[in-house]
């Protein structure tokens, strides 16, 4: 059975740094997706994702609520994205050009609050969302992976949708219209 975020974090801090690779595996795609919406290009998003994970690893002992690892990771990623932006400015691009770059990136897909909302879901709900959509498993495959009945998985997903809607509504973006064919 997969360990929880909290268990992985605690094992990392107890001398099992290899467990961090499992956390990277778990969150690399949603984190990349989140960053791709916030920085200028996909290579930059990948670079920012790597940097965010490394910083998270180095600061892991400061994480007071190990169960909130992903939410905390997104906070780090947000700071990394801002630093990238400032770095672009320092590299000689004028502010207007850099801001245009950021706006272009944001305009490409302004759906990053979705990852933020996923981060605050209860872990069992988040787990099925990640497996179903970011790992691309079918509901049946998710059920096999988690050793749960199919009905439990579909109900958990349905309830996760309801929680996501509440969360997005609280963030003022629940009714956002997104073209489902649009790619990041």
């Amino acid at each position: 059975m997969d360990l929880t975020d909290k268990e992985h974090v605690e094992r990392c801090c107890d001398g099992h740094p290899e467990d961090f690779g499992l956390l990277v595996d778990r969150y690399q795609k949603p984190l990349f997706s989140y960053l791709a919406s916030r920085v200028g290009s996909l290579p930059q998003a990948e670079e920012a994702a790597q940097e965010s994970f490394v910083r998270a690893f180095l600061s892991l002992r400061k994480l007071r609520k190990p169960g909130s690892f992903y939410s905390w990771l997104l906070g780090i990623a947000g700071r990394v994205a801002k630093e990238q932006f400032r770095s672009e400015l320092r590299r000689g691009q004028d502010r207007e050009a850099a801001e245009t770059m950021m706006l272009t990136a944001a305009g490409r897909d302004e759906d990053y609050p979705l990852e933020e909302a996923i981060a605050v879901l209860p872990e069992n709900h988040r787990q099925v969302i990640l497996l179903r959509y970011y790992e691309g498993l079918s509901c049946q495959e998710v059920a096999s992976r988690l050793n749960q009945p199919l009905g439990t998985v579909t109900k958990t997903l349905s309830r996760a949708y309801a929680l996501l809607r509440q969360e997005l509504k609280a963030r003022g973006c629940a009714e956002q219209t997104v073209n489902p064919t649009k790619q990041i």
Partner: protein
Amino acid sequence: MNCAECRDNFVACAEGLLERGEEQQCRAHLAACADCRAEYEFSVHLQHRLLARGQAAAGVDIVETVMRRVRQEQFKPERETIMSKILKHRWGLGLGATATAAAVTLIALLSTPKIQAAAVEAMTKGAQAVANLTSIHLRGQLRTQPQDNFSYINADCPFYTIELWKEFDPILKWRVEKPNRVLVMDGQSTVMLINSNTGVKLPQPTASAFDTEWLHRIANLSNTISNELDNARDKGWKLTVTEDHGADGRLKSIVTVMAKSGVPDNDYVKNTFIGNADTRRVYRFDAQKNLLESVQIFLVRPSGEVQIFDLSEIDYNQPIDPKVWQLDVPADVSWYQAPKELPDNEKYASMTAEQAARAFFEACSREDWNEAAKFMSPINDQLKQYLGGLEIVSIGESFTSKMYGGRFVPYQIKLRSSETKKWNVALRKDNPAHRWQVDGGI
């Protein structure tokens, strides 16, 4: 079907996973209930959004890259200073780690020759054999100076005992000890006691601190493998394996790693610390149990090899006396304190390393310990006795090392005891007050 039942079935309904009868009931409820219909439409919409996000990230795979960077952070050569450890201590290495797929993957990535792959396999088995340890105790011999730090090596020195105790359950605790220096991490904080009169405290638990990382690494074969493989790829380290029968008649696998530090031959600190030294490392495993039985490290110099470390006492899963985690700190111990900004801080922050060295020795000469304390912490009575009343003979031009973040200033002083000392004082100013601080070489 009521609203709650209908909403629980949204995903199954949208994905065609309901029985025909259930689906009809669900659709009928949606047709009749505006609230549920709105919620259902949102769910479908959300599903599209999530599918788009997931598809865009489908090709992302940065696990190996991130873990390589993490390992590089872990295995950065340890700085050889007390102060740097206080300012920035790193993750160390626990022991329970298994040699997992990561090591196997690295073997493939390296495309190692067969003999190298065999060496890795022997180490991997060794790591698997100790994957679930509850405790470990290492007792080895290191050529070092008692007063110097835990990773200092000197081929001209005799061997001194160095020990590591490590317990994993219920929480990580460890202790490292050599003559004149004890370091205890009791699960809450990390305290080092030097010569029973000087203390350094980190208020948090650590997995490794104060130049003990190399010893922790020996106790953690999984990370050792990662380290040796990364270096084999990046620096051309060679791994070989042979087999031999030990004194007990049992077959042994002997893995040898030729480790190049990458430090230039003319660098001042080359071969003075484990991490800065060119070494040949010999790991000996019981071929049947796969347990690590001994480690030997040889310093490799143009003039020949000298053994600098010998480890043949390794206790696995033995109960550790709780007293090991206790450290008796004398009441009058002098504690290290990080430098703080002074009212006239700029005067000191603008000094060159040479000026700072001279100002420090002049303060010692006058026995003005308040002034001397602006350059060094702590200055205990023993040090005051040693340096008080000295005469400066010369202060030379400072120089740097690739492996050190500060500068070295050559000096010659005449002590009150009439002894003349000629050496290099290490100074660094990467502290919040940006003042040069004596970091070693006294």
